Protein backbone atom coordinates (compact mmCIF):
# COMPACT_ATOMS: atom_id res chain seq x y z
CA UNK A 1 0.00 0.00 0.00
CA UNK A 2 1.13 3.52 -0.61
CA UNK A 3 -0.21 6.92 0.43
CA UNK A 4 0.93 10.37 1.44
CA UNK A 5 -0.37 12.56 4.25
CA UNK A 6 0.32 16.29 4.02
CA UNK A 7 0.70 18.99 6.61
CA UNK A 8 -2.48 20.91 7.29
CA UNK A 9 -4.67 17.97 6.31
CA UNK A 10 -6.85 15.54 8.19
CA UNK A 11 -6.47 12.11 6.62
CA UNK A 12 -9.17 9.68 7.76
CA UNK A 13 -8.64 5.97 7.35
CA UNK A 14 -11.80 3.96 6.86
CA UNK A 15 -12.05 0.21 6.76
CA UNK A 16 -13.85 -2.74 8.30
CA UNK A 17 -12.70 -4.29 11.56
CA UNK A 18 -9.51 -6.29 11.36
CA UNK A 19 -8.42 -4.80 8.05
CA UNK A 20 -5.12 -3.60 9.47
CA UNK A 21 -5.75 0.03 10.37
CA UNK A 22 -4.23 -0.37 13.82
CA UNK A 23 -1.40 -2.48 12.39
CA UNK A 24 -0.66 0.33 9.96
CA UNK A 25 -0.52 2.79 12.87
CA UNK A 26 1.72 0.47 14.85
CA UNK A 27 4.13 0.31 11.91
CA UNK A 28 4.18 4.08 11.62
CA UNK A 29 4.72 4.40 15.39
CA UNK A 30 7.61 1.96 15.32
CA UNK A 31 5.81 -0.52 17.56
CA UNK A 32 6.00 -3.25 14.91
CA UNK A 33 9.51 -2.90 13.53
CA UNK A 34 9.43 -5.91 11.21
CA UNK A 35 7.50 -4.45 8.30
CA UNK A 36 8.57 -4.40 4.68
CA UNK A 37 8.43 -1.18 2.73
CA UNK A 38 9.27 2.35 3.54
CA UNK A 39 7.78 4.91 5.90
CA UNK A 40 9.08 8.37 5.23
CA UNK A 41 8.54 11.07 7.86
CA UNK A 42 9.52 14.54 6.68
CA UNK A 43 12.38 13.07 4.71
CA UNK A 44 13.50 10.67 7.47
CA UNK A 45 13.25 6.91 7.22
CA UNK A 46 11.05 5.82 10.15
CA UNK A 47 12.71 2.43 10.54
CA UNK A 48 16.04 4.16 11.16
CA UNK A 49 14.69 6.33 13.99
CA UNK A 50 15.08 5.50 17.67
CA UNK A 51 12.05 5.43 19.96
CA UNK A 52 12.97 8.83 21.34
CA UNK A 53 13.52 10.37 17.90
CA UNK A 54 10.27 9.01 16.55
CA UNK A 55 8.41 10.49 19.52
CA UNK A 56 9.64 13.90 18.42
CA UNK A 57 7.99 13.39 15.02
CA UNK A 58 4.74 11.62 15.82
CA UNK A 59 2.38 11.95 18.75
CA UNK A 60 -0.18 9.24 19.30
CA UNK A 61 -3.64 9.37 20.83
CA UNK A 62 -4.69 5.83 21.76
CA UNK A 63 -8.27 4.75 21.43
CA UNK A 64 -8.58 4.14 25.13
CA UNK A 65 -6.12 4.78 27.89
CA UNK A 66 -6.68 3.20 31.27
CA UNK A 67 -3.90 4.19 33.64
CA UNK A 68 -3.59 1.73 36.51
CA UNK A 69 -2.67 4.45 38.95
CA UNK A 70 -4.66 7.51 39.76
CA UNK A 71 -2.82 10.31 38.01
CA UNK A 72 -4.17 13.83 37.80
CA UNK A 73 -5.03 15.21 34.38
CA UNK A 74 -2.09 17.61 34.67
CA UNK A 75 0.35 14.74 35.26
CA UNK A 76 -1.03 12.74 32.33
CA UNK A 77 -0.57 15.70 30.01
CA UNK A 78 2.87 16.36 31.46
CA UNK A 79 3.96 12.88 30.35
CA UNK A 80 3.83 14.16 26.78
CA UNK A 81 6.87 16.33 27.49
CA UNK A 82 9.02 13.25 28.17
CA UNK A 83 10.27 13.15 24.57
CA UNK A 84 12.28 16.30 25.24
CA UNK A 85 13.68 15.28 28.61
CA UNK A 86 17.05 13.79 29.36
CA UNK A 87 17.00 10.22 30.64
CA UNK A 88 17.22 11.14 34.32
CA UNK A 89 15.27 14.39 34.44
CA UNK A 90 11.72 15.28 35.37
CA UNK A 91 9.62 17.98 33.69
CA UNK A 92 10.29 21.48 34.96
CA UNK A 93 8.40 24.73 35.16
CA UNK A 94 8.26 25.41 31.42
CA UNK A 95 6.93 21.90 30.76
CA UNK A 96 4.22 22.42 33.35
CA UNK A 97 3.26 25.71 31.77
CA UNK A 98 3.11 24.00 28.40
CA UNK A 99 0.79 21.33 29.76
CA UNK A 100 -1.52 24.03 31.13
CA UNK A 101 -1.45 25.82 27.78
CA UNK A 102 -2.45 22.68 25.94
CA UNK A 103 -5.36 22.12 28.32
CA UNK A 104 -6.41 25.73 27.87
CA UNK A 105 -6.23 25.45 24.11
CA UNK A 106 -8.65 22.53 24.18
CA UNK A 107 -10.87 24.37 26.66
CA UNK A 108 -10.39 21.95 29.54
CA UNK A 109 -8.07 23.84 31.90
CA UNK A 110 -10.54 23.36 34.74
CA UNK A 111 -9.79 19.63 34.62
CA UNK A 112 -6.10 20.12 35.39
CA UNK A 113 -6.23 19.03 39.02
CA UNK A 114 -8.96 16.46 38.52
CA UNK A 115 -8.14 12.75 38.80
CA UNK A 116 -8.04 11.19 35.35
CA UNK A 117 -10.36 8.46 36.63
CA UNK A 118 -12.96 11.10 37.42
CA UNK A 119 -13.24 12.48 33.90
CA UNK A 120 -15.85 11.57 31.30
CA UNK A 121 -15.10 9.77 28.04
CA UNK A 122 -15.08 12.97 26.01
CA UNK A 123 -12.87 14.76 28.51
CA UNK A 124 -10.45 11.84 28.50
CA UNK A 125 -10.10 11.97 24.76
CA UNK A 126 -9.37 15.70 24.93
CA UNK A 127 -6.84 15.10 27.70
CA UNK A 128 -5.08 12.52 25.54
CA UNK A 129 -5.06 14.99 22.65
CA UNK A 130 -3.59 17.62 24.99
CA UNK A 131 -0.87 15.12 25.90
CA UNK A 132 -0.15 14.59 22.21
CA UNK A 133 0.01 18.36 21.67
CA UNK A 134 2.69 18.94 24.31
CA UNK A 135 4.87 16.44 22.46
CA UNK A 136 5.30 19.26 19.93
CA UNK A 137 5.34 16.96 16.92
CA UNK A 138 4.38 17.80 13.34
CA UNK A 139 2.29 14.64 13.05
CA UNK A 140 -0.68 13.45 15.11
CA UNK A 141 -1.99 9.89 14.96
CA UNK A 142 -5.42 9.29 16.46
CA UNK A 143 -6.84 5.80 16.78
CA UNK A 144 -10.62 6.04 16.55
CA UNK A 145 -10.76 9.26 18.53
CA UNK A 146 -14.54 9.32 18.63
CA UNK A 147 -15.21 5.69 19.55
CA UNK A 148 -17.06 5.39 22.86
CA UNK A 149 -18.10 9.05 22.78
CA UNK A 150 -21.58 10.49 22.64
CA UNK A 151 -22.60 12.56 19.64
CA UNK A 152 -21.88 15.91 21.28
CA UNK A 153 -18.42 14.88 22.42
CA UNK A 154 -17.68 13.33 19.03
CA UNK A 155 -18.30 16.65 17.32
CA UNK A 156 -16.33 18.53 19.99
CA UNK A 157 -13.30 16.27 19.44
CA UNK A 158 -13.57 16.29 15.64
CA UNK A 159 -13.81 20.08 15.53
CA UNK A 160 -10.67 20.35 17.64
CA UNK A 161 -8.89 17.93 15.33
CA UNK A 162 -9.87 20.04 12.35
CA UNK A 163 -8.59 23.18 14.05
CA UNK A 164 -5.26 21.48 14.74
CA UNK A 165 -4.90 20.48 11.11
CA UNK A 166 -5.59 24.09 10.08
CA UNK A 167 -2.72 25.11 12.34
CA UNK A 168 -0.38 22.95 10.32
CA UNK A 169 -0.45 19.53 11.97
CA UNK A 170 -0.51 16.45 9.78
CA UNK A 171 -3.41 14.49 11.24
CA UNK A 172 -4.07 10.81 10.62
CA UNK A 173 -7.09 9.22 12.21
CA UNK A 174 -8.84 5.90 11.93
CA UNK A 175 -12.59 5.89 12.13
CA UNK A 176 -15.68 3.78 11.55
CA UNK A 177 -17.89 6.71 10.66
CA UNK A 178 -17.89 7.60 6.94
CA UNK A 179 -20.33 10.48 7.41
CA UNK A 180 -18.19 12.22 10.00
CA UNK A 181 -15.03 11.62 8.05
CA UNK A 182 -16.79 13.27 5.09
CA UNK A 183 -17.54 16.35 7.17
CA UNK A 184 -14.28 16.63 9.09
CA UNK A 185 -11.48 15.42 6.84
CA UNK A 186 -9.58 16.67 3.85
CA UNK A 187 -8.73 13.26 2.51
CA UNK A 188 -10.10 9.77 3.03
CA UNK A 189 -8.19 6.54 2.64
CA UNK A 190 -10.15 3.32 2.51
CA UNK A 191 -8.54 0.01 3.37
CA UNK A 192 -9.63 -3.50 2.47
CA UNK A 193 -7.73 -6.77 3.01
CA UNK A 194 -4.65 -4.99 4.27
CA UNK A 195 -4.24 -2.73 1.28
CA UNK A 196 -5.49 0.60 -0.03
CA UNK A 197 -8.88 0.37 -1.75
CA UNK A 198 -9.13 4.01 -2.66
CA UNK A 199 -7.73 7.33 -1.59
CA UNK A 200 -8.99 10.79 -2.43
CA UNK A 201 -11.11 13.73 -1.41
CA UNK A 202 -14.19 12.94 0.72
CA UNK A 203 -16.44 13.76 -2.25
CA UNK A 204 -14.68 11.16 -4.37
CA UNK A 205 -14.76 8.45 -1.76
CA UNK A 206 -18.15 8.67 -0.10
CA UNK A 207 -20.43 7.02 -2.65
CA UNK A 208 -22.44 3.85 -2.68
CA UNK A 209 -19.95 1.88 -4.78
CA UNK A 210 -17.11 2.44 -2.31
CA UNK A 211 -19.35 1.76 0.69
CA UNK A 212 -20.49 -1.49 -0.88
CA UNK A 213 -16.99 -2.70 -1.66
CA UNK A 214 -15.69 -1.46 1.70
CA UNK A 215 -18.32 -2.80 4.09
CA UNK A 216 -20.13 -5.30 1.85
CA UNK A 217 -23.49 -3.65 2.52
CA UNK A 218 -25.74 -1.97 0.01
CA UNK A 219 -26.16 1.68 0.98
CA UNK A 220 -27.77 4.72 -0.49
CA UNK A 221 -25.68 7.86 -0.11
CA UNK A 222 -27.63 11.09 -0.14
CA UNK A 223 -26.27 14.57 -0.27
CA UNK A 224 -27.38 17.22 2.23
CA UNK A 225 -26.85 20.98 2.67
CA UNK A 226 -25.26 21.69 -0.72
CA UNK A 227 -23.17 18.53 -0.42
CA UNK A 228 -21.50 19.75 2.78
CA UNK A 229 -22.71 16.54 4.38
CA UNK A 230 -23.52 13.11 3.08
CA UNK A 231 -25.71 10.54 4.69
CA UNK A 232 -25.44 6.77 4.26
CA UNK A 233 -28.60 4.71 4.68
CA UNK A 234 -28.64 0.93 4.32
CA UNK A 235 -30.83 -0.08 1.40
CA UNK A 236 -32.50 -2.75 3.54
CA UNK A 237 -33.95 -0.05 5.81
CA UNK A 238 -35.44 1.93 2.99
CA UNK A 239 -36.86 -1.04 1.13
CA UNK A 240 -38.33 -2.64 4.26
CA UNK A 241 -40.21 0.50 5.12
CA UNK A 242 -41.63 0.72 1.64
Amino acid sequence: MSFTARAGEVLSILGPNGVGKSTLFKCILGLLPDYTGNIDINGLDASGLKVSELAKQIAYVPQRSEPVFNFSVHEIVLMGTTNKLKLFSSPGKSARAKAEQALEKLGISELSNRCFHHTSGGERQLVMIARALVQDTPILLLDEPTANLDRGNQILVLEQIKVLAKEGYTVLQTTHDPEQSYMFSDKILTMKDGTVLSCGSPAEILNKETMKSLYGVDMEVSSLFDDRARFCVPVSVISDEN
Partner: protein
Amino acid sequence: MDRKNIKKTETQYEIMPKEQSAMNVQDDKIKKIPPHRQLAGPSAIMIFIAILIICTLFSFTLGRYPVPLKELLAILGNKIFGLFQDAGKFWTEQMEAAVWNVRLPRVILSVLVGACLSAAGASYQGVFQNPMASPDILGASAGAGFGAALAIFLDFKHVNITLSAFAMSLITVALVFRISNYVKGGKVLGLVLAGIMVSSLFNAGTSFIKLVADPNNKLPQITYWLMGSLSGAKWSDIRFVIFPMLAGLIPLLLLRWRLNVITMGDEEAKTMGVDAGRVRLAVIISATLVTASAVSVSGMIGWVGLVIPHMMRRIVGSSYRWLMPVSMLGGSIFLLMVDNISRNVTTAGIPIGILTSFVGAPFFILLITGRGERY
Protein backbone atom coordinates in the same frame (compact mmCIF):
# COMPACT_ATOMS: atom_id res chain seq x y z
CA MET B 1 -33.59 18.27 52.39
CA ASP B 2 -31.53 15.25 53.30
CA ARG B 3 -28.69 14.13 51.07
CA LYS B 4 -30.00 10.63 50.75
CA ASN B 5 -33.33 9.60 49.42
CA ILE B 6 -33.98 7.34 52.38
CA LYS B 7 -33.90 8.97 55.78
CA LYS B 8 -34.06 6.92 58.94
CA THR B 9 -36.50 8.31 61.49
CA GLU B 10 -36.40 6.10 64.57
CA THR B 11 -37.85 2.81 63.39
CA GLN B 12 -39.52 3.81 60.18
CA TYR B 13 -38.04 4.86 56.86
CA GLU B 14 -39.23 7.93 55.10
CA ILE B 15 -38.93 7.72 51.37
CA MET B 16 -38.60 11.01 49.58
CA PRO B 17 -40.34 11.77 46.29
CA LYS B 18 -38.51 10.04 43.49
CA GLU B 19 -37.76 13.07 41.35
CA GLN B 20 -36.23 15.07 44.17
CA SER B 21 -34.06 12.24 45.29
CA ALA B 22 -32.73 11.64 41.81
CA MET B 23 -31.64 15.25 41.55
CA ASN B 24 -30.01 15.15 44.93
CA VAL B 25 -27.97 12.12 44.06
CA GLN B 26 -26.64 13.96 41.03
CA ASP B 27 -25.68 16.98 43.09
CA ASP B 28 -23.98 14.73 45.51
CA LYS B 29 -21.91 13.10 42.77
CA ILE B 30 -20.67 16.41 41.46
CA LYS B 31 -19.59 17.56 44.90
CA LYS B 32 -17.85 14.27 45.57
CA ILE B 33 -15.15 14.70 42.92
CA PRO B 34 -12.18 15.12 45.20
CA PRO B 35 -9.14 17.29 44.59
CA HIS B 36 -6.40 15.06 43.34
CA ARG B 37 -3.53 15.72 45.67
CA GLN B 38 -3.71 16.38 49.34
CA LEU B 39 -0.16 17.55 49.83
CA ALA B 40 2.28 19.10 47.38
CA GLY B 41 5.34 16.94 46.70
CA PRO B 42 8.13 19.22 47.95
CA SER B 43 6.35 20.03 51.22
CA ALA B 44 5.62 16.35 51.74
CA ILE B 45 9.32 15.57 51.33
CA MET B 46 10.33 18.27 53.82
CA ILE B 47 7.75 17.10 56.36
CA PHE B 48 8.81 13.47 56.02
CA ILE B 49 12.49 14.37 56.39
CA ALA B 50 11.64 16.27 59.58
CA ILE B 51 9.61 13.34 60.92
CA LEU B 52 12.43 10.92 60.06
CA ILE B 53 14.99 13.02 61.97
CA ILE B 54 12.73 13.27 65.00
CA CYS B 55 11.97 9.53 64.91
CA THR B 56 15.66 8.70 64.56
CA LEU B 57 16.63 10.77 67.62
CA PHE B 58 13.67 9.37 69.53
CA SER B 59 14.71 5.81 68.65
CA PHE B 60 18.17 6.38 70.13
CA THR B 61 16.72 7.27 73.51
CA LEU B 62 14.66 4.09 73.63
CA GLY B 63 16.10 0.92 75.09
CA ARG B 64 16.77 -0.90 78.28
CA TYR B 65 19.78 1.24 79.06
CA PRO B 66 18.48 4.82 79.39
CA VAL B 67 20.41 7.54 77.54
CA PRO B 68 19.02 11.08 77.95
CA LEU B 69 18.77 13.25 74.86
CA LYS B 70 21.56 15.60 76.01
CA GLU B 71 24.06 12.77 76.43
CA LEU B 72 22.88 11.20 73.20
CA LEU B 73 23.54 14.36 71.18
CA ALA B 74 26.90 14.79 72.88
CA ILE B 75 27.97 11.22 72.10
CA LEU B 76 26.97 11.61 68.47
CA GLY B 77 28.76 14.98 68.33
CA ASN B 78 31.85 13.39 69.80
CA LYS B 79 31.88 10.43 67.46
CA ILE B 80 31.03 12.29 64.29
CA PHE B 81 32.51 15.76 64.73
CA GLY B 82 35.09 15.10 67.45
CA LEU B 83 33.42 17.38 70.03
CA PHE B 84 33.80 17.02 73.85
CA GLN B 85 37.18 15.28 73.70
CA ASP B 86 38.69 13.55 76.79
CA ALA B 87 37.86 15.68 79.82
CA GLY B 88 34.75 17.10 78.22
CA LYS B 89 33.04 13.70 78.28
CA PHE B 90 30.14 13.74 80.71
CA TRP B 91 28.61 10.39 79.76
CA THR B 92 29.46 6.85 80.76
CA GLU B 93 31.25 4.25 78.66
CA GLN B 94 28.10 2.08 78.77
CA MET B 95 26.05 4.90 77.28
CA GLU B 96 28.57 5.30 74.51
CA ALA B 97 28.61 1.58 73.78
CA ALA B 98 24.81 1.36 73.80
CA VAL B 99 24.42 4.29 71.44
CA TRP B 100 27.32 3.71 69.08
CA ASN B 101 27.67 -0.06 68.86
CA VAL B 102 24.14 -1.28 69.46
CA ARG B 103 21.53 1.33 68.68
CA LEU B 104 23.15 3.29 65.88
CA PRO B 105 23.71 0.33 63.51
CA ARG B 106 20.24 -0.91 64.23
CA VAL B 107 18.65 2.47 63.62
CA ILE B 108 20.62 3.00 60.41
CA LEU B 109 19.72 -0.46 59.23
CA SER B 110 15.99 0.02 59.88
CA VAL B 111 16.09 3.30 58.01
CA LEU B 112 17.89 1.71 55.06
CA VAL B 113 15.85 -1.48 54.96
CA GLY B 114 12.58 0.46 55.26
CA ALA B 115 13.54 2.78 52.42
CA CYS B 116 14.69 -0.11 50.25
CA LEU B 117 11.64 -2.32 50.69
CA SER B 118 9.26 0.55 50.17
CA ALA B 119 11.09 1.87 47.10
CA ALA B 120 11.31 -1.63 45.63
CA GLY B 121 7.58 -2.19 46.21
CA ALA B 122 6.67 1.11 44.58
CA SER B 123 8.97 0.34 41.63
CA TYR B 124 7.64 -3.16 41.03
CA GLN B 125 4.07 -1.84 41.23
CA GLY B 126 4.97 0.66 38.54
CA VAL B 127 6.85 -1.55 36.10
CA PHE B 128 4.35 -4.38 36.40
CA GLN B 129 1.42 -1.94 36.32
CA ASN B 130 0.10 -3.92 39.22
CA PRO B 131 -0.86 -2.25 42.50
CA MET B 132 -0.59 -5.58 44.32
CA ALA B 133 3.08 -6.14 43.46
CA SER B 134 5.50 -6.29 46.38
CA PRO B 135 9.30 -6.62 46.63
CA ASP B 136 9.15 -10.43 46.69
CA ILE B 137 7.26 -10.68 43.37
CA LEU B 138 10.31 -11.95 41.47
CA GLY B 139 11.45 -14.35 44.15
CA ALA B 140 14.09 -12.15 45.80
CA SER B 141 12.81 -12.97 49.30
CA ALA B 142 12.33 -16.66 48.66
CA GLY B 143 15.88 -16.87 47.27
CA ALA B 144 17.35 -14.97 50.21
CA GLY B 145 15.47 -17.18 52.65
CA PHE B 146 16.84 -20.29 51.00
CA GLY B 147 20.36 -18.87 50.90
CA ALA B 148 20.24 -17.96 54.58
CA ALA B 149 18.73 -21.29 55.62
CA LEU B 150 21.40 -23.15 53.67
CA ALA B 151 24.17 -21.04 55.19
CA ILE B 152 22.87 -21.56 58.72
CA PHE B 153 22.51 -25.30 58.04
CA LEU B 154 26.11 -25.45 56.84
CA ASP B 155 27.22 -23.58 59.97
CA PHE B 156 28.42 -20.41 58.22
CA LYS B 157 29.42 -17.31 60.13
CA HIS B 158 27.14 -14.28 60.45
CA VAL B 159 28.65 -12.34 57.54
CA ASN B 160 28.59 -15.38 55.29
CA ILE B 161 24.92 -15.98 56.05
CA THR B 162 24.22 -12.46 54.81
CA LEU B 163 26.40 -13.02 51.77
CA SER B 164 24.72 -16.33 50.97
CA ALA B 165 21.24 -14.78 51.30
CA PHE B 166 22.24 -11.87 49.05
CA ALA B 167 23.79 -14.10 46.39
CA MET B 168 20.90 -16.58 46.35
CA SER B 169 18.44 -13.73 46.11
CA LEU B 170 20.10 -12.38 42.99
CA ILE B 171 20.51 -15.86 41.51
CA THR B 172 16.79 -16.52 42.02
CA VAL B 173 15.74 -13.35 40.21
CA ALA B 174 18.21 -14.09 37.40
CA LEU B 175 16.64 -17.55 37.09
CA VAL B 176 13.17 -15.98 36.98
CA PHE B 177 14.36 -13.72 34.15
CA ARG B 178 15.80 -16.64 32.24
CA ILE B 179 12.61 -18.68 32.55
CA SER B 180 10.37 -15.74 31.67
CA ASN B 181 12.03 -15.54 28.26
CA TYR B 182 10.48 -18.88 27.40
CA VAL B 183 7.01 -18.12 28.75
CA LYS B 184 4.44 -17.69 26.00
CA GLY B 185 2.54 -14.43 26.09
CA GLY B 186 3.46 -11.04 27.45
CA LYS B 187 6.84 -10.25 28.98
CA VAL B 188 5.35 -8.88 32.20
CA LEU B 189 3.03 -11.85 32.66
CA GLY B 190 5.95 -14.19 32.01
CA LEU B 191 8.04 -12.55 34.72
CA VAL B 192 5.24 -12.63 37.27
CA LEU B 193 4.38 -16.28 36.56
CA ALA B 194 8.02 -17.35 36.60
CA GLY B 195 8.41 -15.40 39.86
CA ILE B 196 5.59 -17.32 41.49
CA MET B 197 6.93 -20.70 40.35
CA VAL B 198 10.56 -20.12 41.26
CA SER B 199 9.58 -18.61 44.65
CA SER B 200 7.55 -21.69 45.39
CA LEU B 201 10.49 -23.91 44.41
CA PHE B 202 12.90 -22.09 46.72
CA ASN B 203 10.39 -22.00 49.55
CA ALA B 204 10.13 -25.78 49.22
CA GLY B 205 13.93 -25.93 49.39
CA THR B 206 13.89 -23.84 52.57
CA SER B 207 11.25 -26.12 54.09
CA PHE B 208 13.38 -29.14 53.28
CA ILE B 209 16.43 -27.62 54.99
CA LYS B 210 14.28 -26.86 58.03
CA LEU B 211 13.11 -30.48 58.04
CA VAL B 212 16.62 -31.91 58.09
CA ALA B 213 18.19 -29.19 60.28
CA ASP B 214 19.15 -29.91 63.86
CA PRO B 215 15.96 -29.09 65.81
CA ASN B 216 17.87 -27.95 68.88
CA ASN B 217 19.99 -25.11 67.53
CA LYS B 218 19.84 -24.82 63.73
CA LEU B 219 16.08 -24.99 63.26
CA PRO B 220 15.27 -22.16 65.71
CA GLN B 221 17.99 -20.03 64.15
CA ILE B 222 16.59 -20.58 60.63
CA THR B 223 13.04 -19.95 61.77
CA TYR B 224 14.08 -16.79 63.57
CA TRP B 225 15.96 -15.52 60.51
CA LEU B 226 12.96 -16.16 58.28
CA MET B 227 10.68 -14.21 60.60
CA GLY B 228 12.73 -11.13 59.88
CA SER B 229 14.61 -9.24 62.54
CA LEU B 230 16.99 -6.36 62.90
CA SER B 231 18.30 -7.47 66.28
CA GLY B 232 22.00 -8.08 66.27
CA ALA B 233 22.52 -5.47 63.56
CA LYS B 234 26.21 -4.76 63.22
CA TRP B 235 28.37 -2.18 61.51
CA SER B 236 29.65 -4.97 59.30
CA ASP B 237 26.10 -5.51 58.01
CA ILE B 238 25.85 -1.87 57.06
CA ARG B 239 29.22 -1.91 55.36
CA PHE B 240 28.11 -4.95 53.40
CA VAL B 241 24.78 -3.63 52.13
CA ILE B 242 25.25 0.11 51.86
CA PHE B 243 26.82 0.03 48.41
CA PRO B 244 24.36 -2.30 46.69
CA MET B 245 21.53 -0.38 48.35
CA LEU B 246 22.76 2.97 47.06
CA ALA B 247 23.51 1.42 43.67
CA GLY B 248 19.83 0.51 43.49
CA LEU B 249 18.17 3.46 45.21
CA ILE B 250 19.91 6.16 43.18
CA PRO B 251 18.83 4.83 39.74
CA LEU B 252 15.30 4.35 41.08
CA LEU B 253 15.24 8.01 42.10
CA LEU B 254 16.71 9.12 38.79
CA LEU B 255 14.38 7.05 36.62
CA ARG B 256 11.24 7.93 38.54
CA TRP B 257 9.71 10.13 35.83
CA ARG B 258 10.24 7.46 33.16
CA LEU B 259 8.62 4.99 35.56
CA ASN B 260 5.52 7.21 35.52
CA VAL B 261 5.33 6.96 31.76
CA ILE B 262 5.83 3.17 31.80
CA THR B 263 2.75 2.73 34.00
CA MET B 264 0.69 3.85 30.99
CA GLY B 265 1.69 0.65 29.17
CA ASP B 266 4.59 -0.19 26.90
CA GLU B 267 3.11 0.99 23.62
CA GLU B 268 1.98 4.35 24.93
CA ALA B 269 5.30 4.81 26.69
CA LYS B 270 7.16 4.18 23.44
CA THR B 271 5.06 6.71 21.55
CA MET B 272 6.11 9.24 24.20
CA GLY B 273 9.75 8.46 23.61
CA VAL B 274 10.42 6.09 26.51
CA ASP B 275 12.16 2.84 25.64
CA ALA B 276 9.89 0.82 27.91
CA GLY B 277 11.84 -2.43 27.72
CA ARG B 278 15.17 -0.95 28.73
CA VAL B 279 13.82 1.31 31.44
CA ARG B 280 11.84 -1.59 32.90
CA LEU B 281 14.95 -3.75 32.93
CA ALA B 282 16.96 -1.01 34.66
CA VAL B 283 14.22 -0.47 37.25
CA ILE B 284 13.84 -4.21 37.90
CA ILE B 285 17.59 -4.68 38.33
CA SER B 286 17.79 -1.73 40.73
CA ALA B 287 14.73 -2.81 42.69
CA THR B 288 16.04 -6.36 42.91
CA LEU B 289 19.42 -5.13 44.13
CA VAL B 290 17.85 -3.14 46.97
CA THR B 291 15.44 -5.93 47.88
CA ALA B 292 18.21 -8.52 47.97
CA SER B 293 20.39 -6.25 50.12
CA ALA B 294 17.55 -5.47 52.50
CA VAL B 295 16.37 -9.05 52.87
CA SER B 296 19.88 -10.42 53.29
CA VAL B 297 20.45 -8.35 56.45
CA SER B 298 16.95 -8.28 57.88
CA GLY B 299 15.27 -11.53 56.85
CA MET B 300 11.71 -11.57 55.59
CA ILE B 301 9.95 -8.34 56.43
CA GLY B 302 6.62 -8.36 54.69
CA TRP B 303 4.04 -5.68 53.96
CA VAL B 304 6.33 -2.65 54.01
CA GLY B 305 6.77 -2.72 50.23
CA LEU B 306 3.06 -3.07 49.64
CA VAL B 307 1.49 -0.85 52.28
CA ILE B 308 3.81 2.15 52.38
CA PRO B 309 3.63 3.06 48.66
CA HIS B 310 -0.16 2.86 48.78
CA MET B 311 -0.29 4.99 51.91
CA MET B 312 2.00 7.52 50.26
CA ARG B 313 -0.15 7.60 47.12
CA ARG B 314 -2.91 8.86 49.37
CA ILE B 315 -0.68 11.64 50.59
CA VAL B 316 1.18 12.87 47.49
CA GLY B 317 -0.73 11.28 44.61
CA SER B 318 0.41 8.65 42.12
CA SER B 319 3.17 10.51 40.32
CA TYR B 320 6.45 8.72 40.97
CA ARG B 321 8.18 12.06 40.86
CA TRP B 322 7.11 12.57 44.47
CA LEU B 323 5.94 9.07 45.30
CA MET B 324 9.41 7.53 45.01
CA PRO B 325 11.27 9.83 47.45
CA VAL B 326 8.30 10.04 49.81
CA SER B 327 7.91 6.24 49.80
CA MET B 328 11.58 5.85 50.74
CA LEU B 329 11.18 8.28 53.64
CA GLY B 330 7.85 6.77 54.69
CA GLY B 331 9.28 3.25 54.61
CA SER B 332 12.18 4.36 56.80
CA ILE B 333 9.92 6.01 59.34
CA PHE B 334 7.55 3.05 59.42
CA LEU B 335 10.24 0.42 59.89
CA LEU B 336 12.06 2.54 62.47
CA MET B 337 8.93 2.88 64.57
CA VAL B 338 7.97 -0.78 64.20
CA ASP B 339 11.51 -1.78 65.17
CA ASN B 340 11.23 0.42 68.26
CA ILE B 341 8.18 -1.57 69.28
CA SER B 342 9.97 -4.79 68.40
CA ARG B 343 12.97 -4.13 70.63
CA ASN B 344 11.18 -2.49 73.55
CA VAL B 345 7.93 -4.36 74.09
CA THR B 346 9.42 -7.63 75.35
CA THR B 347 12.91 -8.39 76.59
CA ALA B 348 13.42 -11.05 73.94
CA GLY B 349 12.23 -8.72 71.17
CA ILE B 350 9.44 -9.70 68.83
CA PRO B 351 10.78 -10.35 65.29
CA ILE B 352 9.95 -7.31 63.22
CA GLY B 353 8.51 -9.38 60.37
CA ILE B 354 5.71 -10.55 62.65
CA LEU B 355 5.00 -6.99 63.75
CA THR B 356 4.90 -5.54 60.23
CA SER B 357 2.32 -8.17 59.34
CA PHE B 358 0.31 -7.39 62.46
CA VAL B 359 0.37 -3.69 61.62
CA GLY B 360 0.45 -3.93 57.82
CA ALA B 361 -2.36 -6.35 57.06
CA PRO B 362 -5.12 -4.56 59.02
CA PHE B 363 -3.84 -1.25 57.78
CA PHE B 364 -4.06 -2.43 54.22
CA ILE B 365 -7.62 -3.60 54.75
CA LEU B 366 -8.41 -0.13 56.06
CA LEU B 367 -6.73 1.41 53.04
CA ILE B 368 -8.62 -0.61 50.42
CA THR B 369 -12.00 -0.40 52.12
CA GLY B 370 -11.80 3.22 53.28
CA ARG B 371 -13.30 6.22 51.55
CA GLY B 372 -11.45 8.06 48.85
CA GLU B 373 -9.41 7.23 45.81
CA ARG B 374 -8.72 3.79 44.53
CA TYR B 375 -5.08 2.97 45.06
